[in-house]
């Protein structure tokens, strides 16, 4: 069965520093991968997606992610974090017909 692992429950980053959030997936076929962000009391907003092609994908708000098949990873990166990036981040994989399986999320805290 498909699964997504986000090994970091919380991450604290200083404002202006770089960020990398880890995501590992388990899925037999070529995966469709997503990163979503959730601010407190809000729904999930799509940051970026990977379906095929270039393994480095660009998203909104200056985020990017790199698909590495050999490592079954899809890590999210941002070169310079802003205080407004503080939120919870979810990695997800599509399997089957179109079912999204989410990781447990990583809470990003941004320190001044």
């Amino acid at each position, binding site marked *: 069965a498909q699964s*997504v692992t986000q090994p970091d429950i919380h991450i604290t980053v200083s404002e202006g520093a770089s960020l990398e959030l880890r995501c590992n997936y388990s899925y037999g076929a070529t995966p*469709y991968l*997503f990163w*979503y962000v959730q601010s407190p*009391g*809000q*729904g*999930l*907003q*799509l940051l970026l*997606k990977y*379906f095929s092609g270039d393994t480095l994908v660009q998203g909104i708000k200056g985020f990017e992610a790199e698909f590495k098949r050999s490592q079954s990873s899809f890590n999210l990166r941002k070169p310079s974090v802003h205080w407004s990036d503080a939120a919870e981040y*979810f990695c*997800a994989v*599509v399997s*089957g*017909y*179109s*079912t*999204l*399986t*989410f*990781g*447990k*999320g990583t809470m990003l805290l941004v320190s001044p």
Partner: protein
Amino acid sequence: EAGVAQSPRYKIIEKRQSVAFWCNPISGHATLYWYQQILGQGPKLLIQFQNNGVVDDSQLPKDRFSAERLKGVDSTLKIQPAKLEDSAVYLCASSPEVPSEQYFGPGTRLTVT
């Protein structure tokens, strides 16, 4: 373009009571999803509709949860009777095609006391 609408935003009920949530997807989106998000966890799919039909309800606790999608547009999710462990945020999402990104509504936070 209007996003996915959900109501109510918050609901507090006592255990064994019933509750219903409503979702209006983005216009033209054929696929509609209901997710349950328990505090500290990622969303878990409860049920997926393709137009009027159910595609996947394998994780829906059918003894107490039910959902319908009338005329392939709006959807309601009902819990009867509610249990304490049903306390969660219920998210509705829609997508124009499969596979595709899903667009989420703001969610309904349910507290069962």
